[in-house]
């Protein structure tokens, strides 16, 4: 696309202002935004509200962590919203004790109900399968990720609608629901714990493992990676599988949180999630980005949505502001990075 300049956050930490800016641009932007909201509405900074924000972003966050892997290879996944819907329905059906009695209403205390972990496994299984299928189409049919996952977006949504036959599935057993609505250590919502745990895991994988380096290498220059002996196809397929894993996990947490799963769930998530990842400094051209950035990007969007609602900004104006802020956040990051190094 255009000649924007991006670069790895792993450059040696020097004491130059622009280097610092470049490294922490999204964080700085987030802090400025939060300060603004805190001044406009003091309730914004209450622990209750901050935990609300974190809980609200945790599902987007899980998806964004998976999407970071995909975008690092210069790929994209537009299908996740649909996949979340599909996987959530399957988890819900499992929790209700199978496909046949999925529409029974009630708290799911039926004898046939399966445990939450089986529901979670089912959701993740669906996610993995969906991701693998797409990764396969991308690497074997050589169709660009944008197109494959656009197709997947339509196909998985159709599958979800078919599965749900129009009705939401709701009312799960309490343990399942706890995964979405419970709290640990007094205040901390369970989805936040799940999000943080997997974000840390993903960070370690990307930063400290061979596999992580391979992802950066494939994203940075796929032909070079191939000639260096990396199995580029396997790496590319794997990131869609990972994305599928996170879609399944996210679907499970979402269903638990809503105590319900429906075929229209997740509509439009793909764009919000991609925006989070990019705001966090990951380059759409691949090879550059961190999980830390993605977490910041996700929180930034959550703060924006929450803050604007709290400040009672009209819904329409909210959309305008969000659009502008997304662009400004990335512009700020790009600017900081371009100043760090002469291109």
């Amino acid at each position, binding site marked *: 696309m255009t000649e924007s300049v*991006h*670069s*790895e956050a*792993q*450059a*040696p930490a020097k004491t*130059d202002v622009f280097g610092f800016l470049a490294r922490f641009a999204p964080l700085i932007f987030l802090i400025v935004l939060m300060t603004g909201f805190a001044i406009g509405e003091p309730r914004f900074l209450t622990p209750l509200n901050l935990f609300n924000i974190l809980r609200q972003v945790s599902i987007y966050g899980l998806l964004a962590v998976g999407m970071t892997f995909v975008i690092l290879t210069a790929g994209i996944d537009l299908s996740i919203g649909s996949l979340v819907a599909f996987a959530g329905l399957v988890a819900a059906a499992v929790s209700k004790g199978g496909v046949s009695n999925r529409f029974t209403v009630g708290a799911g205390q039926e004898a046939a109900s399966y445990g939450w972990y089986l529901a979670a496994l089912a959701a993740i299984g669906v996610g993995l399968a969906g991701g693998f299928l797409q990764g396969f189409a991308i690497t074997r049919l050589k169709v660009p990720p944008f197109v494959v996952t656009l197709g997947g977006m339509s196909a998985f949504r159709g599958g979800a609608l078919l599965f749900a036959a129009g009705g939401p599935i709701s009312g799960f057993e309490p343990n399942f629901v706890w995964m979405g609505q419970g709290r640990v250590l007094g205040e901390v919502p369970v989805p936040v714990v799940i999000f943080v745990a997997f974000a840390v895991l993903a960070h370690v994988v990307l930063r*400290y*493992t*061979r*596999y*992580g*380096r*391979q992802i*950066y*290498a494939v994203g*940075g*220059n796929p*032909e*070079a*990676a*191939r*000639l*260096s*002996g*990396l*199995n580029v196809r396997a790496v590319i397929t794997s990131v869609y599988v990972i994305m599928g894993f996170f879609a399944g996990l996210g679907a499970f947490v979402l269903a638990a949180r809503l105590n319900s799963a429906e075929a229209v769930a997740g509509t439009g998530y793909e764009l919000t999630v991609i925006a989070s990842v990019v705001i966090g400094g990951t380059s759409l051209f691949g*090879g*550059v980005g961190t999980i830390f950035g993605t977490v910041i990007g996700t929180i930034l969007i959550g703060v924006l949505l929450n803050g604007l609602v709290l400040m009672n900004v009209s819904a329409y104006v909210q959309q305008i502001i969000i659009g502008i802020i997304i662009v400004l956040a990335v512009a700020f990051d790009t600017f900081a990075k371009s100043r760090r*190094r*002469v291109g």
Partner: protein
Amino acid sequence: MKPLLRMSLISKRFPGVQALDDASLEVLPGEIHALLGENGAGKSTLIKILSGAQQPDSGTIEFGGQSVTFVSPHDAQRRGIVTIYQEFTLTPNMTIAENVFIGREPGLGVFVDWRKMASETRAITKRLGLELQPMSIVRGLSVAEQQMVEIARALSMKSRLIVMDEPTSALSSAEVEKLFRIIRELKAHGLSIIFVTHRLEEVMQICDRYTVLRDGRLVGSGAIANTTIDGIIRLMVGRQVNALFAHREKTPAGDVVLAVEGLNRRGNAQDQNASVLADVGFEVHRGEILGVAGLVGAGRTEMARVVFGADPFDSGRVFVDGRQVRIRSPQDAIRHGIGLVPEDRKQQALFLALAVRVNLSMASHQRIMRWGVFMDETAERAMVEEFRKRLNIRMASPEQLIASLSGGNQQKVTLARWLALRPKVLIVDEPTRGIDIVAKVEVHNLLFEMARSGIAVVAISSELPEVLAISDRIIAMREGRISGEIKGENATEEVLLSMMTLSAKAA
């Protein structure tokens, strides 16, 4: 002696070209083997097949006495065949250390040990005599430095055979010397090396045996000791070629066309405060060829880009025909009659997915327009035809994709793009990089013809014999400064080398 490698009757067809036609290659243990041929002869294709990057249509490979098939580069590497490809295979946004150890990172289990990776990288770059930080990002390195990183990577691998596809085309003589020293060391350890180059002096200097390909076929092989440069050229082109470097009668230089004063530019990847260009100034006259010599990273490319408006600068003045001009973009430069043939053909000059015709006319649309908006394709074809004849460009049709031309012919099209514009000044950066000896002579002749027609030519080259052969006057650069100037007829390699390596004050 039993050969280490025997490739027999290898064929490979690409749509439209038979790249290899029953080609064969034998490499003995512990020898340095030159693989030679014109542009498009099939050298790189043979190498890619050897390294598992491409699959042959037919033919067999024996390595170490065993018959092998490589379906991926990984297979070949496992057997100890390490390849430095002609096209760079670095990942620009990663560190040097990561690039060196890509896919083989040291560490425990699945984890990477960054510290160890950095120290091992440092050890190898030291051995190559490089002052590079293992943790700096590759994208900021110059072409030559990147080439050295490629070499460092190859050295870091366990290997029995190292294949080097034109490793020296981006290097100047000092780096070439360092590389040769290492190659000799490797040979002493019993490794074999396949060495591809278009600089035949290098072949004479370091290789033991040679194999020559022409049009994908094996046309000869033997010991270097039993042949001469002329003999090799004859094999390569299939006929007698007389002059290695063309000579020309010098014409008296005209007025000053381009003058540059006090050009400064700061900051590079490693150091914000380093000067890329410091107080650079020079003049070029009408009809003159000004050679620019320098070591890798001396700032020659940067100077050219700044003068052409491709990069910004901090201070300095540029004069064209005696009048000061503001150049802030390539468009400005073109408007003032300055052209640039960049150093990296693929990245900076070619539109690989477009036809030769479209590539050739890209900078001179004004000349072939109708009613101010439409392209006059008839005029355009005529223009292509004119240059095809004048520059002896070998192509099937003007509609052929430029990607399918040989390197030399691609370079001629790039030169033609600028000639079509009739510039006052043409800066050519490494104009013969990677092109074969015959094409090189043709390009030199072309530069002479340009000078004769009144163009002021600034020719940057890392090959000292080339600089000496074509220049009326030579300036040398070192660490972003002009470190010396000398008339072409007075210059020798030794003088130039000392100007390139001593500091400006001492010179």
